[in-house]
């Protein structure tokens, strides 16, 4: 391998693109991981919720108020409400069932189909694009590479979310309830924690994060009904590699996959699609708890 020709190929621009891809993947993966860590539910519909975030933000800017930031917040919260409704109506009845885990996976898969079709029904199959907010609609040039300032913002916001989540889980009272319930549901319930409400709250939070990821990446990608199907697979890879239930794992995993998607094709023209799946298989076989185990670690 000739490194003198390879090294200049990785510009700072590629790294920024990779990290911004990783940031939006982190937002969906951390919600998925949080829900699994606390509720034990693998939410197949998480990619669909992410996609819904992008559509909600688009709908708000086009028909309610033409303000990007407001649209992102409203979009993310609306997705949270959808997630909470899904949890209360269809997942809650399954916690006590013996083979509940697989049933929950199948039920949430049902929502993949439903949300996918509803989106097509309301917004059609054509892809939409969203304008970059004016405040960040300029390019940054570092050395030979140029990239959109908005990507830097997305990276910063993801880091901020990571930090706040970590503080929230490890430093607040509610966070300690979440950690306690995650390690022993019955004990927490006996100590007076309202477990069903806490579960709904965590599902809401996880869905808000997915919606936030979707809404924030609307200016960076074309939004179409196929978006959810693609992104859920990336999210599964990330949470498995990082460890189901681990926030640090979701962060590191998301950045690895993001960078692999932006830089990978230059190194390994044939195989960059297969590598994440191969990594997923290897982690499941040799370290099923992931590279980083446990919530809040």
């Amino acid at each position, binding site marked *: 391998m000739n490194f003198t020709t390879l090294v200049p190929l990785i510009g700072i621009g590629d790294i920024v693109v990779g990290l911004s891809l990783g940031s939006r993947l982190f937002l969906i993966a951390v919600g998925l991981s949080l829900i699994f860590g606390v509720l034990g539910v693998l939410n197949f519909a998480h990619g669909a919720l992410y996609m819904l975030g992008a559509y909600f933000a688009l709908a708000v800017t086009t028909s309610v108020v033409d303000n990007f930031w407001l649209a992102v917040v409203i979009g993310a919260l609306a997705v949270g409400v959808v997630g909470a409704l899904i949890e209360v109506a269809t997942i809650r009845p399954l916690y006590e069932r013996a083979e509940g*885990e697989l049933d929950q996976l*199948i*039920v949430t*898969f*049902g929502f993949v189909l439903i949300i996918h079709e*509803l989106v097509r029904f309301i917004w059609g199959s054509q892809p939409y694009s969203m304008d970059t907010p004016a405040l960040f609609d300029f390019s940054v040039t570092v050395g030979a590479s140029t990239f959109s300032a908005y990507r830097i913002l997305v990276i910063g916001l993801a880091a901020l979310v990571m930090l706040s989540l970590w503080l929230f889980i490890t430093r607040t009272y509610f966070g300690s309830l979440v950690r306690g319930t995650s390690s022993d549901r019955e004990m927490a319930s006996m100590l007076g924690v309202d477990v069903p409400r806490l579960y709904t709250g965590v599902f809401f939070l996880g869905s808000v994060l997915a919606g936030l990821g979707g809404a924030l990446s609307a200016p960076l990608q074309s939004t179409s009904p196929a978006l959810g199907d693609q992104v859920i*697979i990336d999210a599964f890879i990330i949470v498995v590699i990082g460890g189901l239930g681990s926030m640090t794992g979701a962060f590191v995993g998301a950045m690895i996959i993001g960078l692999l998607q932006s830089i990978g094709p230059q190194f390994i023209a044939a195989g960059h699609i297969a590598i994440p799946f191969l990594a997923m298989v290897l982690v*499941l076989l040799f370290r*099923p708890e992931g590279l980083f185990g446990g919530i809040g670690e």
Partner: protein
Amino acid sequence: MSGDEDGTRTGLAAFGSAAVTDGWTRERISLLVAIGLVAMAFAPSFQVYLFTEFLIIALFALGFNLLYGYTGLLSFGHGLFFAGGSYGVAIVLRDLGPVIADVVGSGIAPVVTFALAMVIAVMIVVVVAIPVGWLSVRLEEIYFALITLAFGMLGFSFILQNPGGITNGTDGILVLLGSVEIGGMDVRLGDRQLYYFLTLGIVASATYTIWRIVNSPFGAVCKAIRESPDRAAALGIDVTHHRWMTFILSALFVGIAGALMAGLASVASPYHAHWTNSATAVVATVIGGATFFAGPIVGAFIYLYVRWGISRFPALEAHWELFFGALLIAVVLYFKIGAVGGLLLLRERLFGAETSTDGGGETE
């Protein structure tokens, strides 16, 4: 319940019992089904195609359910074996067709080639399933679903990557079955009616084989593992080994379904390996009722015919997924016995309790 409804029910029950005593025996019903299946071949061409597709998806779901309903392992990667079957047939037809024609002479070459292609395709699937299954059965529940999903998508990316030009990337491989001359007549192997009978024969034999498997001591061990892996292990069963064997058998039948699909659709497509195709088996099986032998068959029937029925209405066209999503959730939440369980309940209501005991197909 009002008196009127009670009256209707007793009336129907009386009608049902009368029908049974009048000789609606299992033999007669079987004969009727057989006549119906033959008559199906003379339906309009599109209907023959749809019914053939139903048979293939039914076998796909039956193979999948050997692992899910009978052994308790939910795979989200059986598309890999479906694609293994379809690509096996496509590659043999493309690359070995001329060689075989040289050996056996061009007259019957297409028949020999297709038969050989089916055999090789299933062998390829088994060769893939042996290591994939050996690794996957080490995991349970969600983790099993995830690793099979990963293996399936690994296969999908392998096909897209087109190593050595063997899989032809995103376009997939065109499957041409060719034609043979019988008594001066040119008979196309891919002819709708002929291919329907071929599929019917293979699917019926495979279904009978699966029926024998689940009702054998091997099947009894599967059910024991599904009910309680720990208890099965305590009885001296090598749970992991048995799951592995079931995995290979399950993949084999799914591979046959995939091989048949290549001939029907005239293409081996990378989509066959995608997780959304693996999900087809999950949806059909759950809707039909995973705890019944006939569940996947009835589920596949509902899946294809409801989809076709919905596509008749332009306003609803292409929104059939919405219906299946809602149905899937409703079945899992409130009606785990699925469509077959529903039919059995209905029969119990109509014909009274005495006939409900010969349901036969339950896995309980």
